């Protein structure tokens, strides 16, 4: 018997009821839940996903690699030591941990119920190597679901750079529901760069739960390049004074792709700073969503929180929804948000044309430049180059289609 996500998960309608979400689609958030208003899951709920069991014996060649990185491979959420680098270098250890549900949404609970084990990283010192986590989804002949779970604990004063690539085997229908929980200790630095480049039939609903302690620094960058339906939800709690968070992202969507960035920046204590730069380009019939909530608690005086989302339409077919939300209960804070959507500036195009650059090349250059503004926020050069190349490749594919 094939268990389906919709009917056979352990929570069922009772769980949905307790969470106050719609029971349709089992424990999936319904369209009446405000946070999911722009990302309906009807198409996902229609498919009966079986647990993924397909075999993968090598890292697919569409995964971009960087030299010198330690690789940790997950196939359908299961850690594959045989495909991974054994030596991660000093300052970081990997082990398989238990998965506990703890806080979070129904998707996090679903992950907790099904995740085989977590891939746990314990950062004890200054890790020099980039840790590259490659999460591969492989469905086989039937639609399949997998629940990768990543836990990162960075001890006080430690530092680590993580790169995550989420990919799937082409031409398959799968649903990846990854959850990452990241604890940044006092004075610790965690840099985490996530690339979601799923197949055009794929669903990917990722939740990241980040906690930053006093004096800790968290730098996150999320790239979204493909998938039928992708959501990257990042919830960051700044829980110790003088914590700093830079959370940035870029997306490039074509075809019928749907991509949703939902961020929650929760300033719980005074003297913290957070900044967000998200930029996207949309083409075809795609749909881009950015929802960014900044919450500043009553005691969180001297908070400096900034947020920008800008999107560029490459044609008239796509849709963009942008919803900044500022909830500020402290009175001595600096908070700013900006949002803009538009088309490529005709003055820019003419300037490039006046230098002999044909319109198609000019558009590519301008789009790359538009996104580079966000990509340049990445402080790790190898990753910055990698993501820049991934965007260039996306644009080249687009030219071929057009």
């Amino acid at each position, binding site marked *: 018997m094939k268990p389906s996500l919709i009917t056979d998960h352990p929570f069922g309608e009772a769980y949905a009821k307790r969470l106050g979400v719609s029971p349709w689609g089992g424990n999936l958030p319904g369209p009446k839940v405000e946070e999911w208003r722009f990302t309906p899951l009807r198409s996902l709920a229609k498919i009966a996903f079986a647990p993924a069991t397909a075999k993968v014996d090598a890292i697919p060649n569409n995964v971009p690699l960087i030299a010198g990185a330690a690789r940790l491979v997950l196939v359908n959420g299961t850690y594959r030591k045989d495909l991974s680098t054994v030596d991660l270098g000093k300052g970081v250890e990997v082990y398989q941990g238990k998965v506990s549900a703890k806080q979070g949404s129904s998707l996090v609970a679903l992950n907790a119920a099904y995740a085989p084990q977590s891939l746990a990283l314990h950062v004890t010192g200054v890790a020099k190597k980039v840790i590259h986590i490659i999460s591969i989804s492989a469905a086989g002949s039937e639609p399949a679901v997998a629940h990768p779970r990543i836990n990162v604990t960075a001890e006080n004063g430690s530092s680590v750079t993580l790169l995550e690539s989420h990919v799937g085997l082409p031409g398959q229908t799968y649903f990846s529901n990854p959850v990452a929980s990241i604890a940044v200790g006092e004075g610790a630095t965690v840099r985490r760069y996530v690339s979601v480049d799923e197949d055009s039939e794929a669903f990917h609903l990722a939740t990241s739960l980040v906690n930053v302690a006093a004096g800790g620094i968290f730098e996150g960058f999320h790239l979204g390049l493909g998938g039928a339906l992708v959501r990257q939800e990042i919830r960051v709690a700044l829980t110790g004074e003088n914590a700093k968070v830079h959370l940035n992202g870029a997306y490039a969507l074509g075809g019928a792709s749907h991509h949703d960035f939902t961020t929650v920046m929760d300033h719980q204590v005074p003297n913290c700073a957070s900044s967000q730069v998200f930029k996207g380009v949309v083409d075809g019939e795609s749909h881009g969503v950015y929802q960014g909530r900044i919450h500043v608690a009553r005691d969180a005086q001297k908070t400096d929180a900034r947020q920008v989302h800008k999107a560029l339409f490459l044609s008239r077919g796509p849709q963009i929804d942008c919803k900044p939300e500022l909830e500020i209960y402290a009175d001595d804070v600096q908070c700013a948000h900006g949002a803009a959507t538009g088309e490529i*500036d*005709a*003055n*820019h195009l*003419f*300037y*490039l*044309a*006046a*230098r*002999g*650059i*044909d*319109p198609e*090349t*000019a558009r590519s*250059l*301008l789009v*790359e*430049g*538009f*996104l*580079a*503004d966000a990509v*340049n926020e990445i402080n790790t050069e190898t990753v910055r180059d990698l993501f820049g190349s991934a965007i260039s490749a996306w644009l080249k594919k687009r030219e071929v289609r057009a």
Partner: protein
Amino acid sequence: MALLEIKNLHASVAGKEILKGITLNLEPGEVHAIMGPNGTGKSTLSNVIAGRDGYEVTKGQVLLDGEDVLAMAADERARAGIFLAFQYPVEIPGVTTSAFLKTALNAKRRAEGKKEIDAMDFLKLVKAKTAVLGMPYDMIKRALNVGFSGGEKKRAEVLQMTMLEPRVAILDETDSGLDIDALKVVSDGVNSLRSPDRAFLVITHYQRLLDYIVPDHVHVLANGRVMATGGKELALELEAEGYAKYLETAA
């Protein structure tokens, strides 16, 4: 046959006629200055030749080496050898000056049937050209024109010109926003490009620029027409007497 022939050119913007019959011939090696009060069509003329959208040519011709320029798209005109140095160069965040220059240079090379320039040769070329213009080489790593001062922007325009080696260069109020030092640097750059097979059309409001870029011919443009043509002394006369008499004649 002149290098650039402008024949009885009429052009409108949003149905309003701005150019009312302009005829100019630029021979190879010549520098022509176009002077005139604000709002008389100087910028319209440069935009029409370069092919900016929003201008409708209602009558007349523009020929480059006998080829119909107006039938070409803006990028084709540039590859054919027309270069417009902008009055207000556009700031383009995220696109480095270097990437932009390389793309433009390769577009031209491809059009000429040449191979694309390789990365090392490109850097060497830029290094040499920036040195000639007294520009810091690091400037090419910055986003195109973003945060550049007025002088830096105009120098960047001249750098592009020296890289692309156009047949006809149109300088649209290149002196605006420049102090005297920057003006001198930019003019030196332009003068270094003067050659027997290249022509310049220098559009300016003030005579000052023409002390540095000395023209062969000066034309006074008023109310969409060339009201007078003379040598470089005409510019000095305009500086002393102003444009009033041409405006009165036109009215």
